[in-house]
C-alpha cells in the first residue's frame, strides 16, 4: 500500500507529529511519500527522508508562507494524485482539520478525524475514533479507494532517524485565489511550548481561583519545560487564553505526562486528555472525577502542593545539571 503524509512546519522545522505519522508508515512497511508546502521549505526534504519518505513533493514559494485552504488544497491534492496514495495522513491541528475534509472531498474519498488507532491490512484501512464525547469507540471502514485520516500528536510513536534520501518532486505554485485573503495574524503563543507538540502538559482549572494560581501553574510548567493548558471554565472566564483550552471543544492532547491541577474533570475535559500516557491529578475534593482517570492523585490544596513540587523538581534538575558537568 502507498501512503502520503502531509508534513507541517513550525518555524524552520518539521512538526514532530508529522514525523510520528511518517514513523508509523515505516512501521507498517508502506511505500511512503510526504508533501511539504511553504516558503523556504525545500531544505526540509532530508528530514522527511530520514523518517521514511521515499518521495517528497515540495511546493516552495513566498506566496505559500502562510496556510490558506485553497492553494494548499490544490498542491496537496496534486501530490495525492501523483503519489497514488491509498492512505493520506495529516495531523489533527487546525490546518489538518481545515484541509483534510476538503482534500477528501476533492479526491472522492472518505475521512476520519482524530484516529485513536489505524490498521492497514491487505490493502484495507480501518480506523478507530471516539464519538459521543469519548463514550463510544467507532471502528470505521472506507468504501472509497483513498482513505484520509487525521491523528493528534502522540497517537503514534516517533521512530529513530535512519539514513535515507528522497526523490524530490517539485510541484507548481498555484495562482493566487483572491476569494480568501489573509490580512493579519494576531499571535498568542509564539515562544511558548506548543500544546499539541509538548511531552509534558501542566493544566490548571477552577481550583487556581485567580491570577496567583495561574502563576503557580506557569512556574511549574517552566520548571518542567512543559506546555500550559486550561479547563474550559478558566478559558471562558478569561484567566487563560482560549488557545490553552484542553477538551472536546478545545485541543485534544496526548502527552507523556499530563498534570491536571485544580481540575475537577468534567466529561468534556476528559475527552481531550485521557489519551495521555501518565496523568497526575491534584485536587482538594477527593470525589473529583479526575481521580478516576489519574495514575497518581494527590488530595491536596494546589497552593500548598505545587510550590513543594516546583522546589523538589528544581533541586533534581540542579542535581542533574551538576552531575552532567
Amino acid at each position: 500500500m502507498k501512503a502520503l503524509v502531509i508534513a507541517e512546519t513550525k518555524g524552520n522545522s518539521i512538526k514532530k507529529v508529522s514525523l510520528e505519522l511518517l514513523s508509523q508508515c515505516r512501521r507498517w512497511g508502506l511505500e511512503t511519500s510526504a508533501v511539504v508546502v511553504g516558503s523556504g521549505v525545500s531544505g526540509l526534504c532530508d528530514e522527511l527522508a530520514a523518517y521514511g519518505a521515499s518521495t517528497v513533493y515540495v511546493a516552495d514559494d513566498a506566496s505559500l508562507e502562510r496556510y490558506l485552504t485553497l492553494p494548499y488544497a490544490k498542491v496537496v491534492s496534486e501530490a495525492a494524485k501523483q503519489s497514488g496514495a491509498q492512505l493520506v495522513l495529516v495531523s489533527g491541528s487546525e490546518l489538518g482539520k481545515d484541509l483534510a475534509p476538503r482534500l477528501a472531498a476533492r479526491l472522492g474519498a472518505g475521512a476520519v478525524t482524530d484516529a485513536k488507532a489505524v490498521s492497514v491490512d491487505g490493502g484495507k484501512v480501518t480506523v478507530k475514533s471516539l464519538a459521543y464525547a469519548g463514550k463510544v469507540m467507532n471502528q470505521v471502514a472506507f468504501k472509497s479507494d483513498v482513505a484520509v485520516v487525521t491523528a493528534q500528536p502522540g497517537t503514534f510513536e516517533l521512530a529513530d532517524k535512519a539514513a535515507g534520501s528522497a526523490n524530490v518532486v517539485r510541484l507548481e505554485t498555484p495562482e493566487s485565489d483572491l476569494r480568501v485573503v489573509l490580512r493579519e495574524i494576531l499571535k498568542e503563543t509564539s515562544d511558548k511550548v506548543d500544546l499539541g507538540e509538548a511531552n509534558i502538559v501542566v493544566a490548571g482549572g477552577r481550583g487556581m481561583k485567580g491570577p496567583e494560581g495561574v502563576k503557580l501553574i506557569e512556574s511549574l510548567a517552566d520548571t518542567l519545560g512543559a506546555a500550559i493548558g486550561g479547563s474550559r471554565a478558566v478559558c471562558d472566564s478569561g484567566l487563560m487564553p482560549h488557545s490553552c483550552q484542553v477538551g472536546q471543544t478545545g485541543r485534544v492532547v496526548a502527552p507523556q505526562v499530563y498534570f491536571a491541577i485544580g481540575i475537577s474533570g468534567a466529561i468534556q475535559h476528559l475527552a481531550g486528555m485521557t489519551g495521555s500516557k501518565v496523568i497526575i491529578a491534584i485536587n482538594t475534593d477527593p470525589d473529583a472525577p479526575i481521580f478516576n482517570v489519574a495514575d497518581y492523585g494527590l488530595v491536596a490544596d494546589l497552593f500548598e502542593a505545587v510550590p513543594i513540587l516546583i522546589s523538589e523538581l528544581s533541586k533534581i534538575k540542579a542535581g542533574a545539571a551538576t552531575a552532567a558537568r
Partner: protein
Amino acid sequence: MKILVCLKQVVDVELNIQLKDGQIADQGLRYVINAYDESALEAALQLKDAAEADVTVLSIGPDRVLEALRKGLSMGADRAIHLKDDAFAGSDSYAFAKAVSELAKARGYDLVVMGKQAQDTDAAQGGPMLAEFLDWPQVTNLIFAQRSPEGGLLVRRVGDEGKEVLTVQTPAVLTISNDFGEARIPTMKGIMGAKKKEIETLSLAQIGVAADAVGVAGSMTEIVNREQPEGRKTGRKVTGEVGAITRELVNWLVNDGKLPV
C-alpha cells in the same frame, strides 16, 4: 444576502450513553441542537442584525428535528427547511455535504453557515466538504464575522499560530467556533412569531438528490463496529501531610522514569 444555517440535532452527550447490539441504545436519550450550530445561527443573525439578510435554518432527520427548527425560528430565523427522507439514514459527512450542496445550488444562497463540528461525532468535515462540492471558499473555526466595506466578509478565525484576520468573498461556507459567543435565547415575542412561520418539508427528490447519493450507499465511510472504550484504570489516590505526599509523588515520577527529560 441569503444565508443557510445547518442545525444538526444530536444526542445530548452529557447523558449516559449505552450500546445495545452494536447500536446506541434508545433508552434515556435526549436530543438537542448541536451547540456549535447554535453559535452558527447566532453568527448568521448578527449579520442580519447589521444589514439586510434572509436566514433559513435547515435540519435533516425524522420529525423530532422540527423542535430544532422551531427553536431556530424563535431565535430569529426567517424560514425553515425540514429535509426528511428515510434514504438519508446512515449518511456520513460526505453524503451530507453532497445533499446540502444540491440544495444550496438550487436555492442560490450566498452563505452556508454551520458549527465547526457536531458534538456527537466531532468529525468537523461537513463544512469543508460542502465548500469543495460547491467550489466555494471556506473559512473554518470562526470567532467573528461582519460585512466588509470592500464586499464580502471580514472574519476572524483561530488557526495554529493565533487569531487570523481574513476577508472572504461570497458565496462561501463558514464554520463557527463555540468561542464566537453565546447564542441568543429566544424571546417570548420570538417564540410567538415562530408559531406563525411555516416549515417547508422537502424530500431528496425535490432537491434533485438521488436516493443512492446519500445514506449508506452514498457514504465513503461506514461504521463497522461500536464499542464502549475501556476506561483508564484508576491509579493511586493519596491523602496525608502535603509535604510528604508531594515528595512521594516526585519520587514516583523520577524513579519510575515517568518524566521525559
